[in-house]
Each structure stands twice: as C-alpha cells, then as structure tokens.
C-alpha cells in the first residue's frame, strides 16, 4: 500500500519544478544577451524594479499581507546607499549593504508595529509609517530634500572593478538580481516557506498546531523589506541618484501594479510586471501625464479580466508552475 503511495510522490516533485528551472534559464539567457540589443541602463533599471516587485510579492503572494508602504524600504535604502557612497566614500558593495541593512532595520520596526493587524488595517499602518518617513526624508538635511542626492559615484567594486564601465555595472546588477531571485525562490521553497503557506491557507489551524504565526509573518516582512532595500540601494548606484520619488507613496502603488500585472504569487510574475510597466513608461513618455491614465486602465483591466496576471494566466493555460 505504502509503495503504491510513494511512487507518484517521487515522480511528481521534479515535474512540478522543471518548468521553473527552464523559465529561470531562459530569463538568465535573455538578460545576458539583452544588453547587446537594447539600452543596458534601461535593463538595469528593470532588474532593480523586478527585484523590488519580487520582494513585495514575497509578502503579498506568499503570506497574503498587503503592504502599502514598500517605498519606505526601497527609498530609504537608496538614500543611505547614496549617502554612504558619496559622503562616506564607501565602495559600492559596502554602500549597497549599508542600504540593505537600513531597510532590514526599518522593516523590523514597521513589522513589529503592523504585524498583528489584518487586511486593510495592516495596509493602512504600513502606508502611514511610510508617509511619516517620506516627510522625514523631505525635511532631513542629508537627503537633499527636493533635490535628492545627486552625482552618486559608482566607485570601484571591491576597490578593483570600475563600475563606471556600463558593462561591468551591468554584470554586477545581473548577479545581484539573479542571486536575490534565487534566494526568494529558496525562501518560498524552504521549511519556513512551508509554514508561510500553511499560515496563508488556514492561520487558525496553524496556531492550533502550535505555530506562533505572528513571528513567521514578521520574519517574512523583514525579509521582504530587506530585499526591497537591496533593490533600492542597487538602483541608487546604477542611476547615481537617490530621490523623493523612490520613497513616496506612488512608488508603493507602482510596485503593487507591477506585481498584479505580472501575476501575484508567481515567482516570475513580478519580473514580467516590472518589465511591462517600465517599458510602457519609457515608450509612452512622449504622451506625458497620460501614462498614469493608461496605467490606471491597465490596473482596472487586470483586476476585472485577468486576475492571475500575465504569468499567472500562462501558468494556468499550460498547467505549469511559474
């Protein structure tokens, strides 16, 4: 009896993850070839936002928590990284680490305050904290207020590789993006991720099995904030600027949109979503403010017509995991 039961068990597991492995290799290949065909700076920006959206998706897609203040971690990591590189003269890798750690700390504080709340209250608290820190960024000296921190030096990685060369910078961003992407994939497919899944499926039952669910949610929140910070810090080095845009609430909304368009709770969805939204902003730049209207229409269309998002719908049609 048990042998019969074990046979499909062994066969089923690899089949479910094979589609993910193939998709990952395709994505990596495209990102390696792409800079020879289009603007590397645009691609680096896409990767930063894709990582931001992936980090956000870790929370909403895999724990079911909607944070409406993720710009806080993205933007503040970007400020600290820019400041560290420009004023303290740290090498880029250390500056990015400084930004990431800042986001982790802010995530821990915000998480402790918000995690016991559910649904809309959770979203509101995260938004309120993010706005509070936005106004702080607006007033504080070191952020440069309306001007932001401009002219951030890219510096030399480990003091050796000059990131002033676009392709060197590209390789660094690619490595950071793929590394963090794999880490997120691992988090979802870890013993910890298994508990997160159980909490999302049936929190009361998870509690009755002895899980202190708030602690797991807090951990997920901090991980998500930290990775959003890595994205923001990397972006500051790439674009050589940290500004109010990155820490303001429309940025929190944009990451929701990217994740939703790509596919909530799919590992590749946020990447596609970030690519689509940024491409649109880039291509539609000539029409000015109308971009926002078009984004709004897409948002509505997503919610009404294809709730699973682009990748979510593909996964459903081809019956694979993505």
């Amino acid at each position, binding site marked *: *009896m048990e042998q019969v039961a074990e046979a499909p068990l062994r066969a089923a597991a690899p089949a479910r993850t094979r589609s993910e492995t193939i998709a990952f290799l395709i994505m990596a290949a495209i990102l390696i070839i792409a800079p020879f065909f289009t603007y590397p700076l645009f691609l680096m920006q896409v990767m930063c936002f894709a990582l931001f959206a992936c980090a956000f998706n870790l929370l909403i897609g895999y724990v079911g928590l909607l944070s409406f203040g993720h710009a806080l971690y993205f933007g503040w990591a970007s400020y600290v990284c820019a400041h560290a590189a420009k004023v303290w003269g740290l090498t880029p890798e250390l500056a990015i680490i400084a930004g990431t750690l800042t986001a982790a700390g802010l995530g821990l504080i915000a998480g402790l305050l918000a995690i016991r709340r559910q649904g809309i209250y959770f979203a509101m608290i995260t938004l309120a904290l993010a706005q509070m820190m936005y106004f702080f960024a607006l007033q504080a000296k070191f952020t440069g207020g309306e001007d932001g921190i401009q002219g951030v030096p890219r510096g030399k990685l480990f003091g050796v590789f000059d990131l002033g060369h676009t392709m060197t910078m590209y390789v660094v961003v690619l490595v950071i993006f793929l590394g963090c992407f794999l880490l997120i994939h691992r988090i979802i497919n870890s*013993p910890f991720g298994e508990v997160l899944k159980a909490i999302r499926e049936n929190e*009361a039952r998870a509690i009755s099995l*002895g899980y202190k669910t708030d602690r797991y949610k807090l951990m997920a929140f901090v991980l998500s904030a930290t990775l959003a910070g890595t994205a923001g810090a990397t972006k500051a080095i790439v674009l050589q600027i940290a500004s109010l845009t990155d820490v303001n609430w429309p940025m929190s909304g944009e990451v929701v949109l990217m994740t939703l368009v790509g596919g909530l709770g799919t590992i590749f969805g946020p990447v596609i979503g970030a690519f689509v939204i940024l491409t649109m902003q880039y291509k539609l730049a000539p029409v000015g403010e109308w971009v926002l209207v078009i984004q709004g229409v897409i948002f509505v269309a997503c919610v009404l017509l294809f709730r699973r998002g682009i990748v979510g719908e593909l996964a459903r049609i081809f019956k694979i995991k993505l």
Partner: protein
Amino acid sequence: MNNDIILETEDLTKEFAGFVAVSGVSLKVARGTIHALIGPNGAGKTTCFNLLTKFLAPTKGRIRYKGRDITALAPADVARLGLVRSFQISAVFPHMTVLENVRIALQRQRGTSFDFWRSSKTLDQYNERALALIADVGLSSFVEWQAVELPYGRKRALEIATTLALDPEMMLLDEPMAGMGHEDIDRIAALIKRVAADRTVLMVEHNLSVVENLCDTITVLTRGRVLAEGNYETVSNNPEVREAYMGTGHA
C-alpha cells in the same frame, strides 16, 4: 484523586456584550477518557471549546491543564503543552497535499521552521512518519491529493492525522462527525476510539446518539450552563435532558 483530572475548569464564564454564552461551567475531564460535551444549538458548546483552547478569553473563571493554570496562555502555547484542538469547519490546509498537511505538524516540533535558507527537500525526513500517520487513518491512497479535493469524511480523517502528528496528550474535537453520512460516522468513531487508547479526548457533539457507544462521560450544556453529567445511561434518562432535546436526542 486530582492527578486523574487532566483538564479542569472552574466557574468558566464568557459574556458577549451582555449575552452570557457560557455561564459558570465547572468541568472535570478525567485522564484517559473520552468525554463529550453535548447540547442543543446555541448551548455554548463551541464557545466553551474556544475558551479551553484559548481562542477566546474568558470573562471569568480558571482553566487548569495537568494542574497548571493555563487561563492566561496564548493559543499556540496551549498547543505546545499537548492540548490540541480541531475545528468545526474541517481544518485542513486546502491547497497543500495530504502529505504536506501532516508534515507541517511534524516539522514544528523539530525546530527548523524558521530556516528560510534550507531546501524544503529537507522536509522529506518526515515522510516516513507522515506516511505512517496517513496510513493509520486510512488515507494511504490519497497521499498526493490536495486536501481540498478530498471528500468531507476524508478531510476529517486528515485533520485527525495532522493532530495526531503532534502526539498530543489531549485532543479536543469540535463536532468531528458533523455533516457526515452513516458510513463516515462509523469510521471516524472507530478512529477516535482507537486514538483515545493512550490519550484523553474531549469532543463537542450536537447529537446524543452519536456519543452513545463512544464516550465514557457526557456533560450536557444548555443555555451556557451544565444541565447534567454522567455516563450515557444517566444522562439519557434525565428528564431535563430529554426536555432540552425535545426528542432529538433519540432521533
């Protein structure tokens, strides 16, 4: 004498905005028995149950488990002491497989549940134990099924397997046979009897006839109060109980 009592409540009371759902219930559950809490709709059974597992905080009264006052503990802590509950609506993790459902319970005790850097393949070490528990409740041919696809009776069996994975000293089952057909009722009743061989079971039940052959002690609640207590003979012959049930007890 006191050592034989595993769970005890004293004057347990719960009020909801002026409405008294549970009123001064003093309950003693003897170790190693199957104890039923029965009563008509709205008698306060489920409220009482939620109080015992700390999913609700009592307005008044004390709860002692193995001689220790657990009135102020959090629900997860109560579960860690070996007092594990089920739910009225079947409590499974719907989009996880039968195997994953049971493993979630096994993994908690091993303390690797915060390891986000490890592969979930490390959870395969629990497969053997999980498959044994699954076989125990007769679900071996459903191992790879998603819990949501299981028929109702099988879901309850899965829930019991998951609860058993924690090896609890005491199980609290909230209407384990609600909404089941006769065949399923018999199977779950047999299962409860079997798992109760070396643990204590407190179950909430709506229907008196279901607990007739299963339970050692029966406590009847009506309108939040204890109406009668004793074995099936005593309780079913109590005129007040007959009246409270208006015949449904022998349906």
